[in-house]
């Protein structure tokens, strides 16, 4: 056993793995944000509330309908995604021609309303949601005890990120999406229904947030404020990765999870701020973010 800066290597590997797990959540959430920003030019501040709704839909379907975790993984993104589609059609659509700031204010206000409603109904101390039976227990990796569920989170997140990247970069649908981002008028002229494309994209981005919510429900406290705490960090991740860059948001998501994990070993007091320090540094050196293009 060797040590690195006075920390046993085993402990360090453990922390790196944990960082990767947290990075999975950052990656899925920032991916959704990046997709939405890339196509709609909307800074979706409701993302945290939608993540929370995902966790709540999982809890509700278990409590009221007896539907377990695996179906919730499918159901929650659909339900919350449909809610997102509704929001886009009724409200967000009206702001596309205005400055980013208006979209930010609208979605921020919506987030406060949604969180307030859930808080009134379910209180603040949270609701119990267990780990599915198939994934309880864990593996002894020698350097740490890895709960099976955490392993699953990494796998699931990688699959989702790769799938999204694959769809957007290699399929015809993805090509339409990218083209509509570049020049919506021209794409519309080719007979592509751009408004529908945009609505569905928003619904998809929101669905990703809900999926992250379901993944988080068994390990984090399911309470109305769970998204508000996380969303600020995720925004920093998106800014560092470059607004609207899909690959950038995924890589930065995992990368910052690792950095945060290391900070928790060497100087835990700073673990809440380290991401913002990095954000400041990145913005000073590369204002468009690590993977962003300057317009």
């Amino acid at each position, binding site marked *: 056993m060797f040590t690195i800066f006075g920390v046993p290597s085993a402990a360090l590997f453990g922390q790196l793995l944990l960082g990767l797990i*947290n990075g999975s959540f950052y990656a899925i959430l920032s991916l959704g944000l990046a997709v939405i920003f890339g196509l709609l030019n909307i800074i979706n501040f409701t993302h945290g509330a939608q993540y929370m709704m995902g966790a709540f839909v999982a809890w509700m379907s278990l409590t009221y309908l007896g539907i377990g975790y695996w179906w919730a993984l499918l159901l929650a993104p659909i339900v919350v995604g449909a809610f997102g589609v509704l929001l886009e059609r009724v409200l967000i659509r009206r702001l596309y021609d205005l400055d980013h700031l208006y979209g930010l204010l609208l979605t921020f206000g919506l987030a406060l309303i949604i969180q307030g409603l859930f808080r009134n109904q379910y209180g603040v101390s*949270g609701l119990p949601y267990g780990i599915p039976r198939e994934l309880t227990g864990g593996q002894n990796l020698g350097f740490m005890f890895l709960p099976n569920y955490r392993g699953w989170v990494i796998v699931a997140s990688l699959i989702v990120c790769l799938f999204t990247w694959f769809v957007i970069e290699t399929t015809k649908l993805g090509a339409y999406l990218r083209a509509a981002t570049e020049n919506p008028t021209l794409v519309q002229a080719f007979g592509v229904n751009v408004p529908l494309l945009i609505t569905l994209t928003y619904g998809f981005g929101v669905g990703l947030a809900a999926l992250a919510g379901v993944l988080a429900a068994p*390990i984090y406290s399911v309470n109305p404020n769970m998204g508000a705490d996380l969303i600020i960090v995720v925004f920093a991740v998106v800014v560092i990765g470059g607004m609207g860059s899909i690959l950038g948001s995924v890589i930065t998501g995992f990368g910052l999870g690792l950095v945060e994990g290391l900070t928790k070993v060497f100087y835990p007091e700073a673990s809440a701020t380290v991401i913002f320090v990095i954000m400041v540094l990145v913005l000073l050196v590369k204002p468009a973010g690590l993977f962003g293009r300057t317009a």
Partner: protein
Amino acid sequence: MRTFALLAGAALALVTASAAEAQVSVKLGILNDMSSLYADISGPGSVVAARMAVEDFKAAEKGLKVDIVQADHQNKPDVGSSIARQWYDQDGVDVIFDVTTSSVALAVSEVTREKNKIFMISGGGTSDLTGAKCTPNNVHWTYDTWALANGTGTALTRQGKKTWYFLTADYAFGAALDRDTSEAVKKAGGQVLGSVKHPLNSPDFSSYLLQAQGSKAQVIGLANAGADTTNAIKQAGEFGITQSGQALAGLLVFASDVKALGLQAAQGLVLTEAFYWDQNDQTREFSKRFAAKFDGKMPTSSQAGVYGSVLAYLQTVAALKSKDSAAVMGKMKSTTFEDPLMGKVTIRQDGRAIHPMYLFEVKKPAESKSPWDMYKTLATIPAEEAFRPLADGGCPLVNKS
């Protein structure tokens, strides 16, 4: 017929005369966090408890006219103290109950002293309220940080859990709990192996838990509160920490927190509280009536404390037939109350209410017979040992005498 009317008239005159003579009207203010992170610990449930106390005391028959007002202090000391000021100055409130959140409780305590009213704390935790910041107008009814640290720290160490490691929320409250508990542990012959400070409101505790696991300490003390505590406990279950023999000790945990976690995640957790609904016939009877009025939720210790302190106040005012603050405080400090929920309660010179505290362990899911069947009692901490000794608090009221 005529005689009957005469008699009836005379009786009526008598009744109204005695009522007019003895009628004392008091106004109680319930001030706490009604909507945010402590709303499930006190919140609207405390108002329900206060109303039940007024009904159970049969205040009207004893010549008391009781009004209850309530407000949300939003966990902000400035909001709390301005509500208190308005209540005392304009709304004729005589006494304020509950007040969760230590910083708000300290602010209300100042206003109460200035206006010479009475403040009976249940939800607020800091032991400064009966220590350095004590006033002649405070009664601290339910628990305080010293009692929690002492209960959990001392009792566990004496049971042979000698080595401790702390997960500490990185702000004043966490540091105080950490410090007090470390002292209690060392005094009982234990040893503190280390601690890790985490930022307030951390969603992920796995990293800190792994460090705590690596320390091989027998007990992991959680010097934090609310969502930080529930997250840490939930994830400790996931990493198999309790199953592998390390015990978790929650230093500020209420029944509502355990309910939120579920027994699967919270099992084995050791904690100190002043009250649990399923202790004896009286607590069960009260709790079932409470639940019937409050969405089926059992009372927390903080809500039970509001019930007890309202009863004690009403009893004193009814006995004195006066609500003069100095007289009521003097009488309360010389009375032994028979609180149906916490047993015999006496109030010390510094305002500390003295009663037994209990060390509980959260049951395994298999041991639980109903949704609210959550705790088993590990130890009863006798009243005289449960709270900080009078001389150690540094309360100026005590030094003067």
